[in-house]
């Protein structure tokens, strides 16, 4: 007998095999001559993971910034706001925990250079009392924030000085007062009004306010009191805040705490976060498809090697472990590259966003979330590579003896298990991306449906081509098309990978369009672009005359009455709001929790008229033009979104608090309002004959022609009716546009990554069929086919595959966009047919070019090498 060395048997279990040294040695050796292809595998996932990492680090950094800077966002422990002056006597009774109080009066007005040549709408903030307590105000020159409190000066934003061509030390006129520009505020003063985001802010000393003559009679004045409390635990602070709230039993007083501000800022980012989450998921799933395609192609090439290993005594577990190790190592490499790219993406987005982020965000991503995102991407990558890896189990060792059909995906428990795992992973990543469980489920379902639909379309296509192909067709066309159903066809794989890729890319773009459209205001057309607010009834005639004198049209006018909602369908809303603010929401009724807080707490500016305007559509009930009897509930028309938030329908009752007078109302109709048009639109419209006696003011709308400014009108108004505020949308729109462009830039950067993730998918799909097509084409050439004929056959096949993949992917994307527009964005789908057509022809072109590129390779291939089996 032969004397054999002692041996240690290789492990029998998959886990043992995976961690055995031979597995990794073999995986390394086996990767030789394949590393170019395998790096494609790594690249497939890198783009997806980079998008995931970039988005998560950005989101986390912003959230972290909001968490840590919440007090700085508010500047105080408690901000009390009211449209009416807040009585000083209350502050004498405040608990001892109140260490300091600050005071601010804010309103919109015009600021001009003393000669009156130029003017601009600004948000005036008259401050006193050391506010802000938590933020450090940065000014240029430094330390002038303190000098403001000596009076006679004004601090402005840098852009305003640039616009006026002024410098620090020059004079500005605010109302009746001229003030010296002390400096420029760079950052650090928390915003107190939502509206203030649109107009540049100027700061004056509160004592100077009276001398401007602007504070009295302006209904858009906000009075704020900021409080600095004794340091204590969150519970203690909450108790003090509750006590202080008790001092203001009257309505119309709003309270903001750092927590509330944090929530508000967080909510404003939610929609963008949601889109970014979808983008990351799309990029990652595309990467996953790329991984599956590239791995499938790789294993197809390695099937003979696996068969040889099995012949030589290698267990299926060991063979599986070898390729799992390869997939794992490459996934790790791809994840590493993706994570680094994601960190770079984070920095790029932070720099691109500039100051438009609500808090300071470091360009350095947080290491924890970076690694977690990279790890999540790696996990998904491994999950997607498992599907093709399962084929190893179906490679027969007998493949070494004769060429047999390649291993196929089986419908066994393992395949089903991996599919279920993938669905779970996608669901998990969707959740990780910040989607609600319901939305994550919808996304996962949508992707799974798309996958199955494409697989079904591929099967149907093969059936149809086989059935309808006619022998009379030209040979080259017949040959190219019949490649779609012949053995070794790539129809299913191509439709799944390219079709799904196109579907995901188009859907991602569609969501971007929906999002951008939702953010974008329409300033075009002949709608109004300047509002005159707070025109008292006795001033309407004079102001209208002024417009006429300046040849400006009076496009629209409406009376405006402020009110709040007291109860809906007999239930008190105010009580519920109070409970919620006191963190006792747990005991509140479920329906109360569904009503957004702003709906309950806000002040509504309502109007009365007998008909709809051009931007309104009646969706339910009838608009009442008469008030009804003296004891009957007043019919009111609600905007449909408000009705949905309140949970009311036509016929339901409400009680409205009209500046202290309770008014019984009945919902008589629901209106759909196009808010993107700047017409005079209202949440509630009453019939004439009800509100005429209530304190009110008039709102007039006009349009400043293009190329002109509202300066002349505003200067004239200062003399005629100084309490009237002009809200100039032309300047607001330019500010909004600038902010929007930054947001769009970020969205585009991230969409670019999704597109980048799609490229390896196409390459993976091509590689899948390359071996077979090379072999067939070389045989055709050997039998006398010209290079042109070979190319034509491939072109027909790939153009058809590209067209059908694009068709199937586009059809699914249209369905997805319609569904998302309806259920997520609540807006019309607004399909971009030009983009759809571009994507369709782009896919056909890319597929055809790829087919041609493939044929170039084929024509360079040595038939001899191929016939020897080394090609």
């Amino acid at each position, binding site marked *: 007998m*032969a004397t054999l060395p002692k041996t240690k048997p290789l492990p029998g279990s998959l886990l043992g095999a995976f961690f055995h040294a031979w597995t990794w040695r073999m995986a390394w050796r086996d990767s030789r001559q394949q590393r170019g292809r395998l790096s494609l595998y790594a690249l497939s996932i890198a783009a997806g993971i980079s998008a995931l990492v970039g988005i998560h680090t950005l989101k986390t950094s912003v959230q972290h910034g909001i968490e840590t800077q919440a007090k700085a966002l508010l500047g105080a422990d408690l901000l009390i706001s009211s449209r009416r002056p807040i009585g000083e006597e209350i502050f004498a009774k405040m608990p001892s925990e109140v260490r300091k109080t600050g005071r601010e009066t804010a309103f919109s007005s015009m600021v001009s250079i003393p000669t009156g040549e130029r003017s601009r709408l600004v948000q005036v903030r008259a401050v006193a009392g050391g506010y802000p307590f938590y933020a450090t105000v940065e000014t240029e020159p430094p330390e002038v924030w303190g000098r403001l409190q000596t009076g006679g000066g004004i601090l402005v934003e840098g852009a305003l000085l640039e616009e006026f061509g002024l410098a620090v030390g020059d004079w500005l006129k605010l109302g009746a007062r001229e003030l010296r520009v002390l400096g420029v505020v760079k950052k650090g003063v928390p915003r107190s009004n939502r509206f203030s985001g649109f107009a540049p802010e100027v700061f004056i000393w509160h004592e100077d306010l009276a001398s401007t003559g602007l504070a009295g009679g302006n209904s858009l004045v906000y009075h704020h009191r900021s409080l600095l409390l004794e340091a204590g635990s969150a519970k203690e602070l909450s108790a003090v805040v509750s006590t202080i709230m008790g001092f203001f039993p009257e309505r119309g007083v709003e309270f903001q705490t750092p927590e509330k501000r944090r929530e508000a800022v967080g909510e404003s980012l939610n929609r963008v976060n949601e889109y970014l989450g979808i983008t990351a998921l799309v990029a990652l799933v595309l990467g996953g498809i790329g991984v599956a395609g590239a791995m499938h192609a790789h294993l197809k090439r390695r099937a003979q090697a696996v068969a040889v290993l099995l012949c030589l005594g290698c267990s299926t577990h060991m063979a599986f472990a070898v390729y799992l190790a390869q997939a794992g190592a490459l996934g790790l490499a791809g994840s590493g590259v993706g994570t680094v790219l994601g960190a770079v993406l984070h920095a790029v987005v932070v720099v691109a966003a500039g100051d438009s982020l609500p808090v300071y965000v470091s360009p350095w991503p947080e290491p924890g979330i970076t690694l977690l995102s990279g790890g999540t991407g790696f996990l998904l990558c491994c999950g997607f590579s498992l599907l093709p890896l399962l084929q190893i189990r179906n490679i027969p060792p007998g493949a*070494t003896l004769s060429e047999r059909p390649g291993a196929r995906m089986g419908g066994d428990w393992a395949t089903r298990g991996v599919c279920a795992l993938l669905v779970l992973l996608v669901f998990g990543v969707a959740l990780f991306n910040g989607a609600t469980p319901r939305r994550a489920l919808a996304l996962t379902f949508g992707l799974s449906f798309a996958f199955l639909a494409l697989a079904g379309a591929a099967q149907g296509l093969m059936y149809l081509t086989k059935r309808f192909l006619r022998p009379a067709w030209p040979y080259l066309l017949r040959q190219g098309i019949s490649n779609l159903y012949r053995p070794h066809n790539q129809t299913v794989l191509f439709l799944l990978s390219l079709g799904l890729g196109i579907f995901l890319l188009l859907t991602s773009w569609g969501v971007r369009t929906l999002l951008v459209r939702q953010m974008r205001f329409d300033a075009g057309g002949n709608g109004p672009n300047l509002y005159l607010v707070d025109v008292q009834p006795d001033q309407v005639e004079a102001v209208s005359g002024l417009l006429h004198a300046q040849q400006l049209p009076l496009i629209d006018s409406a009376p405006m009455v402020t009110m709040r909602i007291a109860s809906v369908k007999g239930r008190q809303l105010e009580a519920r709001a109070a409970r919620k603010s006191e963190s006792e929401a747990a005991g509140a009724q479920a329906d109360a929790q569904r009503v957004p807080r702003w709906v309950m707490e806000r002040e509504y500016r309502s109007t009365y008229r007998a008909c709809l305007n051009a931007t309104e559509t009646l969706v339910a009930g009838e608009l009442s033009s008469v008030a009804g009897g003296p004891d009957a509930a007043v019919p009111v028309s609600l905007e449909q979104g408000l009705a949905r938030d309140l949970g009311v329908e036509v016929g339901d009752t409400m009680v409205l608090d009209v500046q202290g007078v309770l008014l019984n109302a009945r919902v008589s109709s629901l209106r759909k309002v196009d808010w993107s048009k700047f017409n005079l639109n209202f949440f509630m419209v009453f019939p004439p004959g009800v509100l005429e006696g209530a304190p009110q003011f008039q709102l007039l709308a006009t349009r400043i022609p293009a190329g002109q400014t509202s300066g002349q009108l505003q200067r004239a108004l200062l003399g005629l009716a100084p309490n009237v505020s002009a809200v100039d949308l032309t300047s607001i729109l330019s500010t909004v546009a600038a902010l929007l462009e930054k947001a769009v830039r970020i969205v585009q950067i991230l969409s670019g990554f999704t597109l980048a993730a799609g490229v390896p998918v196409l390459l993976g799909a091509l590689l899948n069929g390359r071996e077979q097509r090379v072999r067939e084409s070389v045989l055709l050439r050997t039998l006398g086919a010209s290079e042109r004929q070979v190319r034509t056959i491939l072109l027909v096949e790939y153009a058809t595959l590209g067209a059908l993949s694009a068709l199937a992917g586009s059809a699914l994307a249209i369905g997805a966009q319609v569904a998302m527009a309806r259920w997520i964005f609540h807006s019309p789908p607004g399909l971009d047919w030009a983009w759809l057509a571009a994507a369709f022809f782009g896919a056909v072109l890319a597929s055809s070019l790829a087919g041609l590129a493939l044929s170039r390779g084929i024509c360079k291939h040595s038939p001899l090498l191929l016939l020897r089996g080394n090609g």
Partner: protein
Amino acid sequence: MYIVEQGISMADPVFPPLQPPVLEVRNLVKTYTEAGSALTVLSDIQLRVRAGETCAIVGPSGSGKTTLLGLCAGLDDATSGSVLLDGQALENLAQDGRAALRGRCVGFVFQNFQLIPTLTALENVLVPLELRGDSAGRPLAEALLKRVGLGERMGHYPSQLSGGEQQRVALARAFVRPPKILFADEPTGNLDAATSAPVVEMLFALNRESGTALVLVTHDPVLAARAGRIISMRAGRIVSEEHTGHGHTA
């Protein structure tokens, strides 16, 4: 150095009949069913091969030679009947059990060599040892490669070797862990006469030295004649058996 173990055949009166066979095939049937129609490629095959015996299977294309070889090595499942390899019934073993059995006592030489293209010649030869967990087999693999005349080409990949050289690497791989039985499927089918000769010499020399039983599928009558027994197949059946006189000592 390998110690030669004598091959014994039940059909050969020279050897004691009690020696157990290394391969025993009983009533073997293989039928392929596709699109509802059945095609029987092997019918009622009986075969016994003893240690050290050399046996050639010949027959026209499509007679079932390669299918029989694959079933004997456990590379495929029989429709009915039984294959006992080294005393173990293959039909009772799962894929991994058969792989382990092949790892212990089976060697292969294929018509198209079947070297792993990403491994060098030396690494290809080392694979069977590594699969047994033998980490000290490198000198043995090197010695075998030198023996087949490839001492200078150990670091070459299969694509850098000629057909004859590749088949010699395959021979070294088959004998690096002396198998109880070697299955050779047309070992010279892809080689010309001049290249075939040294390969055939080496095949029989290594077989003789290691005492391995050899089952050889071939179209080549000269090669078949070097085996101790020639089994002729036609239409999936064994139609004749002939003893050449070369026996196990060929």
